[in-house]
């Protein structure tokens, strides 16, 4: 059957004329090119080649309102339009399949179960920006995803969807499946480019932006897997249709990875603007809190986004609403924890991760995350001193906004949010030398 037993809402998606990304992800045959074609695959690609100018494709994607699903939410069509039209240099497209933000496990489902959808989206994007060599950068640990993508790529060549003079259009396009070496920072687009170039995965200072000077100093577009997989649907159904999904400013649908203390963790495709509360509690999605315990908090967009408390979850899952609610949509990874979870215990795990993943290029991030880890470990172990909470706050403040890439901010924004929302618990840890709530999750 499937490589991963992860739960999806494919059945609901199949019934809907609005949701689309997950329509065939419970069909084990979908990975094969014949089945994908039977389900309407590569029709958009052929249409683009036969009937559309690159500028028309960019315009269509712009009008659809599609925004990046990798974390930052930047308008996809607008990004494509930054590629200089008159540059004599080759252009490159890199599909970002690094998927390493803790809590996120959505791109994987597409790679394992609908790989041609990604290839089709990548091909259309390549055509739009005038690229003849596209890459998919897959995190090294996802060996099985790389195998799926390699297999699908071979089939796509065999069926004439890639290669020379594709479908008689005169357009040539090649693809490379590139795997990484286990570094979260390589998901950051400029590190990703360094990594493909065979360098250490360190972030680059911007400007220049990749669209002007990216891979091998040539104009390059980096897009997330899910962003690209959405593109064929926009071409097939039209920008107007896509724009009618979701909310006014957050158009379309999005996959949310739901994990932690819920009864039914999984990947769920819903329209943007969907209720966070419903995602956690509805019987068709999360199904409520594990053991019917009380909810304590939610991280709504992956481990880099500020936390929410139960009184804040009556909120719409879209870019604007979450910012208004004090957090961010991020990668759409919703992590839920119940009343038996100590907040310092949670943060200890997150800061360990960010310290481990800091690329070391800038001092505030390299040194700051190391200090934070030490200090937070001390507090967690019950050896905190008066003033330590303020010290954590101060170090966070010295990192925030002072780094080359957003990893520094990503490390401290969640911490700062917990200092605001659960300060009493931090202080309790210092005053009493132990957790306010006993945290010990058993594995059975």
């Amino acid at each position, binding site marked *: 059957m499937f*490589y*991963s*037993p*992860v739960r999806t809402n494919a059945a609901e998606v199949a019934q809907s004329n609005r949701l689309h990304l997950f329509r065939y992800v419970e069909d084990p045959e979908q990975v094969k090119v014949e089945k994908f074609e039977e389900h309407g695959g590569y029709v958009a690609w052929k249409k683009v080649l036969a009937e559309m100018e690159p500028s028309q494709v960019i315009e269509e994607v712009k009008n659809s309102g599609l925004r990046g699903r990798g974390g930052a939410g930047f308008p996809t069509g607008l990004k494509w339009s930054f590629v200089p039209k008159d540059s004599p240099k*080759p252009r490159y497209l890199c599909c970002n399949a690094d*998927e*390493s*933000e*803790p*809590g*996120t*496990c959505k*791109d*994987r489902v597409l790679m394992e179960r609908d790989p041609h959808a990604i290839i089709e989206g990548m091909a259309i994007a390549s055509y739009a920006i005038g690229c003849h*060599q596209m890459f998919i950068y897959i*995190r*090294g*640990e*996802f*060996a*099985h995803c790389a195998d799926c993508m390699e297999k699908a790529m071979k089939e796509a060549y065999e069926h004439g969807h890639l290669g020379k003079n594709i479908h008689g259009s005169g357009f040539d396009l*090649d693809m*490379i499946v*590139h*795997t*990484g*070496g*286990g*570094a*979260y920072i390589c998901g950051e687009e400029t590190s990703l480019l360094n990594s*493909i*170039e*065979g*360098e*250490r*995965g360190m972030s680059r200072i911007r400007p220049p932006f990749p669209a002007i000077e990216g891979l*091998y100093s040539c104009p390059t577009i980096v897009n997330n897997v899910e962003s690209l997989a959405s593109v064929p649907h926009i071409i097939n159904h039209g920008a107007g249709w896509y724009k009618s999904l979701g909310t006014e400013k957050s158009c379309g649908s999005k996959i949310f*990875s*739901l*994990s*932690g*203390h819920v009864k039914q*963790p*999984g*990947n769920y495709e819903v329209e943007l603007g969907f209720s966070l509360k419903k995602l956690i509690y509805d019987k068709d999605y999360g199904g409520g809190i594990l053991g019917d315990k009380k909810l304590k908090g939610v991280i709504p967009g992956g*481990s880099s986004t500020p936390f929410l408390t139960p009184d804040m979850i009556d909120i719409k899952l879209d870019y604007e609403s979450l910012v208004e609610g004090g957090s961010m949509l991020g990668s759409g*990874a919703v*992590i839920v*924890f119940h009343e038996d979870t100590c907040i310092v215990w*949670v943060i200890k*795990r*997150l800061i360990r*991760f960010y310290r*481990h*993943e800091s690329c070391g290029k800038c001092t505030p991030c390299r040194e700051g995350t190391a200090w934070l880890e030490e200090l937070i470990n001390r507090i967690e172990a019950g050896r905190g001193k008066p003033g330590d909470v303020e010290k954590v706050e101060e170090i966070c403040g010295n990192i925030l906004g002072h780094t080359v890439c957003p990893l520094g901010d990503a490390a401290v924004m969640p911490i700062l949010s917990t200092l605001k929302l659960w300060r009493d618990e931090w202080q309790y840890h210092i005053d009493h030398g132990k957790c306010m709530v006993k945290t*010990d*999750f*058993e*594995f*059975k």
Partner: protein
Amino acid sequence: MILTEESVRKIKEKLQQYPQPKSVILPALTVAYRQVGYVDADIYREISHIINIPTVEVAEAATFYTMFAKKPRGKYLIQVCHNISCALLGADSLIGYIEEKLGIKIGETTEDNLFTLVTVECLGSCATAPMMQINQDYYEKLTKEKVDQILEDLRSKA
């Protein structure tokens, strides 16, 4: 030569695909790592000869990427995720369970050289937590019963 003919062929194939040879460093390290189970100075040298890039540049990249083990380990490398979603579902207790079962601590290898246990950060399997990766393979939604079965199967295969 440590790298087999098959590995060398794979690396040369990559050289044909990429616009620039330096880009083949990571793919070459991946091929070597899959074959040998770790990478070291001898392997950097061999890769450097095949792709015609100075050894120091291969080494520089290799040391940055933590996935490539730098010294030999047990036949099966057990990598348990201890990041947040897995921790919420008992990753710490899972690690303790494996430690006890194998009689080793994190970072150690069993005496028969079969299993090495390490912890890793999020592996993108958060909605099927807790999980572990053994060599290339993912094992998700783990229970004690499943772990017993998996380790037993590997032991009998070895």
